[in-house]
């Protein structure tokens, strides 16, 4: 009996990466906005909104990385060396961001230094994740079964631009998260940040949507050929509708809708990316099926994963439930 496990693993990996982008996205976004907030009290509240959950969010990155290694080893062996410096700088950024949560509270004399480390680590991690996204869309130079470009392929206009774009994206997630989780002056300030970030995100979505089909004729073909165009046109239309809803929600002082809208925008961009790149796991040379591990390896890991994933989701839901509601200055997790 042969079951094709590739679609299942594509789904598991796709969900893991998306969970990572959404969840670590909003807490990295708070790091990006951090130095712009008015005063130390506001900064402490910002940090407290994410303090109990940020490290759980980060574990989805391990899930994605290990899943790619185990289920699609060839893709891992090609993509990861291509991302040598972006991944290195992202990991170092995440390390600085992570320890800043702890050390900023321990030694007041070094507090400014750890505050800076929190901001710089979050910003670097986000920027280089955006660079990775840009490189992925641009595609990798592959010879045989190996990456054959250089370790500096990332220093090109498009990846650098998507790096900046993701800064706006995570800032939007972070700001709308704060709108949901805080009150008063901080919430008003977060609304203003969220609006600016939303404009930035929309500009970058437009830029990528125009540039990508021009750079890659096969992507243009997928979106603009008939009959694809009739139903794929729904993607930009729904994206525009979500953007409008998020914008109006921010103008009308809604609490929850801006964050839901921001997540919706990310979901639509992710879907659009998937439509453009399918079936490649290494654009534009290696498909999911080319890169897949042998069925016995995929099956061996799937057994444990299917057992653990539901438990992880239940724990996650419970954790967010425990920490629901507004965070104010007098609620501290320390």
């Amino acid at each position: 009996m042969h079951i094709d496990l590739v679609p299942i693993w594509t789904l598991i990996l796709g969900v893991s990466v998306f969970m990572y982008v959404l969840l670590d996205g909003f807490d990295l976004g708070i790091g990006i906005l951090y130095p712009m907030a008015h005063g130390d009290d506001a900064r402490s509240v910002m940090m407290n909104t994410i303090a109990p959950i940020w490290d759980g969010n980060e574990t989805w990155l391990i899930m994605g990385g290990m899943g790619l290694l185990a289920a699609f080893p060839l893709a891992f062996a090609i993509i990861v060396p291509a991302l040598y410096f972006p991944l290195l700088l992202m990991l170092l950024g995440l390390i600085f961001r992570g320890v800043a949560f702890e050390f900023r509270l321990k030694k007041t004399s070094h507090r400014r230094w750890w505050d800076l480390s929190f901001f710089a680590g979050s910003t670097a991690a986000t920027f280089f994740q955006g660079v990775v996204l840009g490189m992925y869309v641009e595609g990798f130079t592959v010879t045989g079964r190996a990456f054959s470009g250089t370790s500096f392929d990332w220093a090109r206009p498009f990846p650098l631009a998507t790096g900046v774009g993701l800064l706006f994206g995570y800032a939007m997630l972070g700001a709308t998260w704060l709108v949901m989780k805080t009150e008063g002056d901080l919430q008003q300030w977060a609304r203003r940040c969220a609006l600016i970030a939303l404009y930035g995100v929309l500009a970058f979505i437009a830029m990528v949507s125009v540039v990508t089909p021009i750079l890659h004729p096969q992507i243009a073909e997928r979106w603009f050929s008939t009959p694809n165009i009739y139903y794929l046109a729904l993607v930009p239309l729904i994206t525009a509708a979500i953007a409008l809803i998020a914008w109006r929600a921010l103008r009308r002082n809604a609490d929850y809708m801006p964050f839901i809208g921001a997540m919706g925008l990310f979901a639509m961009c992710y879907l659009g990316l998937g439509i453009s790149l399918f079936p490649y796991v290494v654009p534009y040379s290696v498909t999911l099926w080319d890169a897949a591990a042998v069925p016995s390896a995929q099956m061996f890991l799937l057994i444990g994963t299917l057992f653990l994933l539901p438990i992880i989701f239940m724990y996650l839901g419970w954790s967010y439930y425990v920490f629901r509601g507004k965070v104010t200055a007098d609620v501290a997790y320390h």
Partner: protein
Amino acid sequence: MELDPVFLSRVQFAFVIAFHILLPAFTVGLASFIVLLEGLHLFRRNPVYLRLSVFWTRIFAVSFGMGVVSGIVMPFQFGTNWSRYTDATGNVLGPLFAYEGLVAFFLEAGFLGIMLFGRKRVPAWAHFFSSIMVAAGTLFSSFWILAANSWMQTPVGHEVVDGRYVPADWLTIIFNPSFPYRLVHTVTGFYLTTAFAVLGVTAWHLKRGRHVDEARTVLDMTVIFIAIFVPIQIIAGDFHGINTLHHQPVKLAAMEGLWDTQARAPAVLFAIPDEKAERNRAEVSIPALASIYLGHSTDAVIKGLKEAAPAERPPVAPVFYAFRIMVGIGLLMLATAYWGLLLRIRGRLHTTSTYQNACIAMLPAGFVAVLAGWTVTEVGRQPWVVYGLLRTRDAVSPSLTGSDVIMSIALYVVVYLIVFGSGIFYMARLARAGPPEHVETREPTLGERPARPLSGAEAEA
């Protein structure tokens, strides 16, 4: 100077894994030690055990946090620097690495939060259960990662298809010939590392007359523990060595410093191996002893390094010296254990200050021994990354240049020194502060349950 990406990638891997392995070397044992303290508290109702458990849980939280952070870097190393290794071995090793990650994920998501922050929120038995699950999780993690490492030493259970390794039988892959020995030897080594770290901190407090009740309790327990487990570790090490003799004779010859195949092989106590002349300088050895402990007979023939062509041998000096450091520390540990046992029998364990000084001096011994043992097994495997199948020089990412790796090493070194330097400083401060006078019984405010390992130190303070 020529910048060789293979050599530099090895330096980088050695650096990041050396930092990383020190943390599990400590947390695996500490998790089990905390289970013991929690269990003793639960069944004997003695508050000394509770105070000790709170104290060591704080230190555990910080080291576990650093272990997670340094661990995230590791899987990416396989891709960034060793992509051809990943391509060749991914079908076999990918699932083993992924299981290790999943277990750690599950453990962190589920039970660590309760263990660190839940003492006042869940019944005592549930807290005890959580600490058991965390300890079991650290052992399962060790199981999977050592299965992967052992397969790289003694690969079996696979087929070779187009130069890549495809799993044929998972049980054979996991329980490969060197795995049971490596698992026992490594986990016992981790337990002893923790025991000597605990012993050193305890002796430090006792010497200053602080936390005397706690210190005496721990000293009594630990001395018994090491008196049992140091000999077990030495025996396990001997079995692991015999296993290496069968499966990786060249590695064993490098460990022993034997160049010629011979019966009545001597145990080389000290020498300066000369790889060019293929002989030892300044050798001090005991005739026939190696044949006895490896072959259990003076006539047992032990293969020498010359059996393999020079290009097929590992670098001899690092393996040879690291092995002597490891064994030397083992003997010092044995002396510490039986000196302590003797003092305990004579009722002078709590009052002999020279013994306390010795324990303090031995605090880092386990960490050094773990690094030395790791060097023996990993450098001894060279020039192979997967023994007999894939050479290290064929495993590196083809796109890397030497200057790429120089830059990444420099960044790792700077960041690790800052971040882990701060972490170790903080752990040392916790260790100096000692157990709390009494454990807070206040009910925390609703919603106060940070799910982060490093914060456990604060939450229980």
